């Protein structure tokens, strides 16, 4: 498969995005947790 044959190339390109993805997941997860805690507090 052509896609897999060039995996080393495009994986290196995607690797640039990894810190951003990790950060966005962490911030998003923190926001969701905060919202859930708020809802629980109201109950």
């Amino acid at each position, binding site marked *: 498969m052509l896609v897999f044959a060039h995996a080393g190339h495009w994986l290196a390109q995607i690797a640039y995005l990894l810190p951003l993805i990790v*950060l966005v997941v962490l*911030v998003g997860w923190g926001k969701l947790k905060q919202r859930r805690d708020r809802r629980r507090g109201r109950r």
Partner: protein
Amino acid sequence: MSDPCAAAAAIGPAWCRRRLAKGAVAVGTVLFAGSIAPGPAFAHGLVGKQDLPIPGWLVAWAAAAVLVVSFVALAVLWPSPRWEHLTERRVAGLPRFLDPLLGTVGLALFAAVIFVGFVGAQTSTQNALPTLVFAVFWVGVPIASLLFGDVFRAINPWRALGRFSGWAAKRMLRELPEPLQYPERLGRWPAAIGIFAFVWVELIYSGRGDPSSLAVLALLYTVVQLVGMSLYGVEPWSRRADAFGVYFGLFARLSPLHWRRAGLYVRPPFAGAAGLIATAGTVALLCVMIGTTSFDGLTQGPTWNSISGWLLDDLRDIGVSPQRSVEVTFTLGLLGMIGAVYALYRLGIEGVWTVDHRRTVSELAGAFVHSLIPIALAYVVAHYFGLLAYQGQAIAYLASDPLADGSDLFGTANSAIDYGWISATGVWYVQVITLVIGHAAGLTLAHDRATAMYDDPRLAVRSQYWLLAVMVAFTGFALWLLSASA
């Protein structure tokens, strides 16, 4: 993400938190330095970017780590605003004749450059005008502005011409009508449009290598400036609407030197950016500044070729000439990149808005826009430093023989570009370190503004989570562009 303030508070007393933050900074610095430190391959002299012993993505990870560590350190060590109400220290006075004198020098230089553009050899390699404009002026002046303050304001030929015209008109007519009030809605929009137009000429316009065309455009710009200054006054126009005056003035805000009429003042580096008033068009201007540089980087790599290929083919299929189809495709790409930069910044601001519903998203975008100034400068230096370092040297022989007629005005007509004074790896180090410092400075400026806007330091930190993501995105993107253009 857990709240760094809460985490630090749970650890213990203030000294303990400070040690934690200092330790974090040290760890981050070591991580970053370790990731970009030269390996044995570098001992063999000049190497290209492709020969670097570490992959670019690893540098992007290390840069992101530095930003996260800086963010934690700011949260712990910077609980209140320091740069919002800055007091600058006066270090020297300036003679009154200096401003008109430097203005005359700037005007004379401008006239000489225009003359060379028309009369000199009509090739970009033999005529000094393209190198002067695209290397010395466009890249050298931003770096000089960072180091020495707003030097361009002193030698700005359009401001000098406006002041001289006003003085002469007053002498002749005795009474001049008062200039109009500069429209608030116009803000920095003329500057944003001017910078866009300049970059369009630099990157897309098919006649960019023709010195006389560049000279004509410079004269057209002069006419626009004179009309604007005569309508709204020299100072209001040159501070907000003169594209280059505004562009270099923004970078000068990062300088520790501040030239005023009363004298020379000093302040902490980067702190001057906090004084930026975000009038209409300021966000657009900063997005144009970052987006245009990014687009220039993108076009030097294979990604742009694969993106633009299909559009170029389609335009040619419908009968558009190859030259026009390239111009249209590149213009769309340029606009798209500016739009992408705006979208990214806007996302970060939407994130700030989630903790501050009292202000509108537009108000918040204006409040934090000054944090983009060091990023814009970092992009310029990272992208164009190589051009300045090598092509900038050409000015020595071009200036000595400006008309390519065999003259040797300064005795440097036979000099050549020395490609050995800094290696490709050295250029790469400058680029990477500038990018990291620029983004860390942006982070600091945004954090300082947040501590001024929110009484609760925890809220100030929480407001910055998404802006941190934006900074990490800008850093990774810039490093990806550098690696793609290798």
